[in-house]
Structures are given as structure tokens and as C-alpha cells.
């Protein structure tokens, strides 16, 4: 199978696009597509500062790589969750992020910039990205599995607590750090798996909040974007492999057997038999959303500022995050 652009041997065939590409053209195609969707969904502009949530996995590190290569001012945020799972998961994930940054910095420092009128002095202040690290146990005194063990939230699995904590921390670091936008590495498979789950129960509230770009339309909320939302998970993994990004292959030990993975498998079964199913599902949803299918729900969403941390919350008083730690304080007393 040959690359459609140059005729060399293809490394990937994207059946939903009827497009096979060699490594060189695939490495060009992914950033081109990402840029296209950044513009299409009005995610951010070149002047804005981006905070990329990185986990050490293929999606977030590939996204960070692509944004930096596109010339965006993108810093990383790693949240240490304190998950061991028998594989030292959190520490390994952190190492991958640090390694990525070291590699990127060494590439930047070895770049010789020349112009028509000779070598140029370049202000690299914005070219060299930073990695913010928030260690949950150091900051709040407990790891995510510890918190999950003492609450009923998530019925024994830490995923719900983890999601809540991550959302809070990401929003806080974005806001306190003066970032214009928070970017996550969600790919199309992530999006359709969530969509599938929410469509099974017609959860209109969740469906309404699923979008490539969520504006910062409430005080204290950072704008959230998913620049890889149109990229298949397969393409994101292929990008990391071809680009030579070292990432953590095993996802969180707690993700095994999760509903979202089961949904991904069902959707991939359909994709195998009918290429483009996942993409069509997602695009049709975005069109329906755009046409106001869930508009009625929007009027009912009202947010208040949390009494303690000031972040938006649906209920008056403390937000769910602060209630989580409040319970620990009460218990300790």
C-alpha cells in the first residue's frame, strides 16, 4: 500500500478517509488536521497561552508535541495521583512527561535559526515549554485511591473521585497561571465512547456539555478544548510511535474493565465492518448539538461560586471537590 502523496510505502491506512500515508506525510498530516480543527472550532489563537494536561500517555504527549511544533505557547500540567497499581503507575507516567520535555528542549536548543539577512537571535522565552507538577498527596495529604476508599463516590472505584480532582486542579492551575485555555488529549474514540454512553441513557445535560470547545462562559471557569477530537485513537497512537515519543503503554490500572473501554470495543467492532462509523456518529452529534437539539437544557444550567475555593459549582455552598476534603478534616477531628 503506497502513500497517496508521494508513492512511498505507507505506514498507516485510515480507512474512514480512504487515505494511506508514509511516515513523513503522516507526521505532516496530523499537525495539519489539528490546526484545521483548532481553527474550525475556534479553540485558540497563536497569541494565547495554552495549558496542556499531560498524563504520560500517547494522546496527551502527542498533543503537546503537535501544539509545540505548530508554534503554540503550550505548557504542560502533570497531576500526580499517587496510583501504584503494582506498576508504579503514577511515577512512571510522570517520568514519561519529564522525558518528553527534556527531549523537546534538547531539540529546541539544537535548532539553528537563520534568515535571509543571516543568523538571528530568537527570543526563546515562549519556545521553551514548562511542566507544572501538582502532587495530590503532597498538597492534600492523601492519594486518589486513599480518598476513594473513604468515600461512597464512585462505588469503590476511584475513577469518579479522580475525575473530580483532576477537573478541579486543571481549572485552578489554568486560572491561577493566567492561561487562556486548557487543552486535553481526548481523541475521537474517547469522545464517541462518552457520547455512546450518554446516548444510551439520553443524558441531555452531559450531551450538552460535550463539545470540541467549551467557552469560559462562567466566572472561574477556564476555556476547555480538545484539539484531537477528530483524530482516531489509532492515529494518535501511530503519531506517537512514528514520531518516537516514549509513552506509558498501560493506562491507569483502574481503567481495566471500565465501561468506556467496553464502549470503545463495541464502536470499533462497528468501525471494522463499516469504516467511518465513529466519525459519522461524532459529526452527526455535533451537527445536532449545533442545531439546538439540547438547547432547552442550557437554560437550566446555573452555577454558583464555591464558598471556599471560588470555583463554579452547581449547588450553593461548597463544591464537590471541597466537600471531598472537608469530610476528611471532619473525620480526622
Amino acid at each position, binding site marked *: 500500500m503506497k502513500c497517496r502523496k508521494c508513492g512511498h510505502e505507507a505506514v498507516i491506512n485510515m480507512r474512514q478517509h480512504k487515505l494511506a500515508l508514509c*511516515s513523513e506525510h503522516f507526521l505532516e498530516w496530523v499537525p495539519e488536521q489539528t490546526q484545521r480543527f483548532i481553527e474550525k472550532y475556534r479553540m485558540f489563537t497563536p497569541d494565547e497561552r495554552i495549558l496542556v494536561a499531560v498524563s504520560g500517555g500517547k494522546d496527551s504527549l502527542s498533543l503537546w508535541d503537535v501544539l509545540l511544533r505548530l508554534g503554540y505557547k503550550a505548557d504542560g500540567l502533570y497531576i500526580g495521583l499517587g496510583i501504584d497499581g503494582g506498576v508504579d503507575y503514577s511515577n512512571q507516567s510522570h517520568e514519561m512527561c519529564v522525558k518528553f520535555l527534556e527531549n523537546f528542549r534538547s531539540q529546541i536548543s539544537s535548532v539553528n535559526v537563520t534568515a535571509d539577512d543571516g543568523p538571528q537571535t530568537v527570543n526563546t522565552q515562549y519556545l521553551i515549554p514548562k511542566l507544572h507538577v501538582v502532587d495530590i498527596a503532597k498538597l492534600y495529604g492523601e492519594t486518589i485511591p486513599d480518598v476513594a476508599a473513604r468515600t461512597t463516590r464512585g462505588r469503590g472505584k476511584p475513577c469518579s473521585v479522580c475525575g473530580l480532582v483532576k477537573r478541579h486542579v486543571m481549572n485552578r492551575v489554568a486560572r491561577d497561571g493566567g492561561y487562556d485555555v486548557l487543552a486535553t488529549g481526548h481523541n475521537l474514540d474517547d469522545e464517541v465512547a462518552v457520547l455512546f454512553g450518554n446516548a444510551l441513557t439520553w443524558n441531555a445535560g452531559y450531551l450538552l456539555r460535550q463539545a470540541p470547545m467549551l467557552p469560559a462562559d462562567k466566572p472561574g471557569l477556564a476555556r476547555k478544548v480538545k484539539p484531537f477530537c477528530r483524530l482516531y485513537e489509532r492515529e494518535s497512537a*501511530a503519531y506517537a510511535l*512514528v514520531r518516537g515519543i516514549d509513552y506509558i503503554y498501560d493506562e491507569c490500572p483502574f481503567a481495566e474493565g471500565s465501561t468506556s473501554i467496553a464502549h*470503545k470495543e463495541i464502536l470499533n467492532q462497528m468501525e471494522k465492518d463499516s469504516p467511518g462509523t465513529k466519525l459519522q456518529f461524532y459529526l452527526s452529534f455535533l451537527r445536532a448539538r449545533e442545531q439546538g437539539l439540547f438547547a432547552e437544557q442550557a437554560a437550566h444550567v446555573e452555577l454558583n461560586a464555591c464558598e471556599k475555593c471560588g470555583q463554579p459549582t452547581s449547588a450553593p455552598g461548597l463544591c464537590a471537590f471541597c466537600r471531598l476534603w472537608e469530610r476528611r478534616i471532619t473525620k480526622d477531628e
Partner: protein
Amino acid sequence: MVKLIYRNKSWEFAAGMTVRDAILKCGLNPEQVLAVRAGKLINEATLLKDGDEVKLVAVISGGVR
């Protein structure tokens, strides 16, 4: 013979089939794995030759069977 390796499992088949067919023969979904031969990503239509060893990389991290 060609050898396919996926996590802690391996399969051996006669040479001459495509990567996609070999993946299907392993009982895996080609949408969910990428094939790597000698450290390089190869496309699904690649014909496997005698002596090839192909590592299958899971696309979905986590609990994919």
C-alpha cells in the same frame, strides 16, 4: 513462518498473508492494534514474509482483550 506478538501472547502463521488478515486470525480487531516490524510501523496491507516478527501495539490503553 511469521510470528505475531501481542502483550504476553504470541501466534505463528504461514507466510504470505496480510497484516490485517493475520490480526484477524489472532482474534483481534485491526482497528485496535498497530503492527510494528523491526521497530517500524507497517500498514495493514503489508504481506508478511517468512521470518517476520510483528509486534502488535494496543491502540486503546488499558484493558483491551
